[in-house]
């Protein structure tokens, strides 16, 4: 089955694995909660990368934790999607000058989508996910 057909099946039910250090998860929680419910799109949070289709790397990553994140990305069964959440993954964000954090996520893991914000509001997260859905539908 080629990748376009697989992705079409994948976007109907995306299971999400969150990998975050500190402040990245705070705006994903309302997306899971009842106000900006993400289960209506079939997305549920899971606890093991073996179950996950989407790896959300939220917030800054240090040198130590990016190695773990890389191993977690390798342990996910493909096809998979990686989302970099927040401006820390795009350009270092608030920690642009730090000796410890990484400045651009796509140097370490192939990223499919960046969602800007510090942290992005739930509506922005949902808009980003919608753009993935729309792109998969356009390609099919």
């Amino acid at each position, binding site marked *: 089955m080629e990748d376009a057909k*697989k992705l079409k*099946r994948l976007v109907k039910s995306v299971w999400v694995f969150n990998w975050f250090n500190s402040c990245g998860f705070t705006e994903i929680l309302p997306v899971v909660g009842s106000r900006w419910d993400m*289960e209506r799109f079939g997305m549920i949070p899971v606890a*093991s990368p073996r179950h996950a289709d989407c790896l959300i790397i939220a917030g800054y990553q240090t040198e130590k934790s990016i190695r773990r994140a890389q191993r977690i990305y390798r342990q996910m*069964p493909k096809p998979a999607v990686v989302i970099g959440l927040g401006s820390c993954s795009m350009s270092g964000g608030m920690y642009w000058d730090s000796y410890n954090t990484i400045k651009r996520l796509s140097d370490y893991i192939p990223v499919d989508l960046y969602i800007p914000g510090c942290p992005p509001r739930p509506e922005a997260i949902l808009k980003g996910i919608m753009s993935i859905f729309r792109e998969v539908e356009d390609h099919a």
Partner: protein
Amino acid sequence: MIMKVLLAMVVPVAGILIGLLYKGIDRILAARMQGRVGPPLVQPLRDVRKLLVKENIVPDDAVGWLFSSMPFVALVSVMAILLYLPLGITPVLEGYGDLILVLYLLIIPSLALVLGGFASSSPYASVGGQREMVKMMSYEFPLAIAVISVAWLLYSSGAENVFSLSVISGTHVWGLAGIPGLAGLAVIFLCMLFVIPGELGRIPFDVSEADSEIAGGIFAEYSGRNLALFYLADAVKAVAIASLAVALFLPYTVSGIFGLGGAAAPAADFLFHLLKVFFVLFVSSTVVRVVTGRLAISRVVSVYWKYPVILSFLGLLLIMGGTLI
């Protein structure tokens, strides 16, 4: 004869579809109760179709043949249970298996989960497997007492072949032992509803597949088609255990009331059975899952050994008192 063979081929497959339907209904109702909207009704089917296109990763240190065969065993055994249960109509394999066989067959899916957990080379899966095994030991006792109480009641009121499921679902047990018997049966029905979330692994008893504690528990290393088979086994197990509870305690049929005959009677009975199964699953699984939180494993053991055992013995005593009077 031809009808029986046809039914034996259709019922397990229908069990999968009905199980996925109930899973979808459960998710929608749980979401509405939590103030959310909830996924569409066919979402579990989409989940399974998605899982079938993912890669199937087998860890290097896992016991490979055990790891890959346990989902297969779980789904096959739980679909075989459906053939012995009365789904509104008489059981498909009527004279060929009885209640005791169903009780033994119900252990196999949980045991497949435990073995699959131990065969994954993950510490999370070992802990999950151990928890599932301890939980299984705890809820088997109230389940056995509940089943034996109903069989004993039927035996003491003169039926023969008390373990045959067509006899059990043909006799209405609620009136057989007077007022104490009614109270006893209500208490035992409550015990059975208490055992159902433990058997299915729903909150508050989902210690073995805990997401936040042990990172997926038993299923931590499963992915792709193995996880899809376990998902389907979980869906069908809900139908099986709820059908058992309905056959023991709520075996009423509708076709007598409406005077239907011929081909319409089994269809109407089957639909009414689906309604009763929905009621049992809603009360024991969906509402409880939304309202409570997860119990720790030590509390699961103490909760299952204290309250349902005491309640079911009380119910048995009440039933015995009712038959003596």
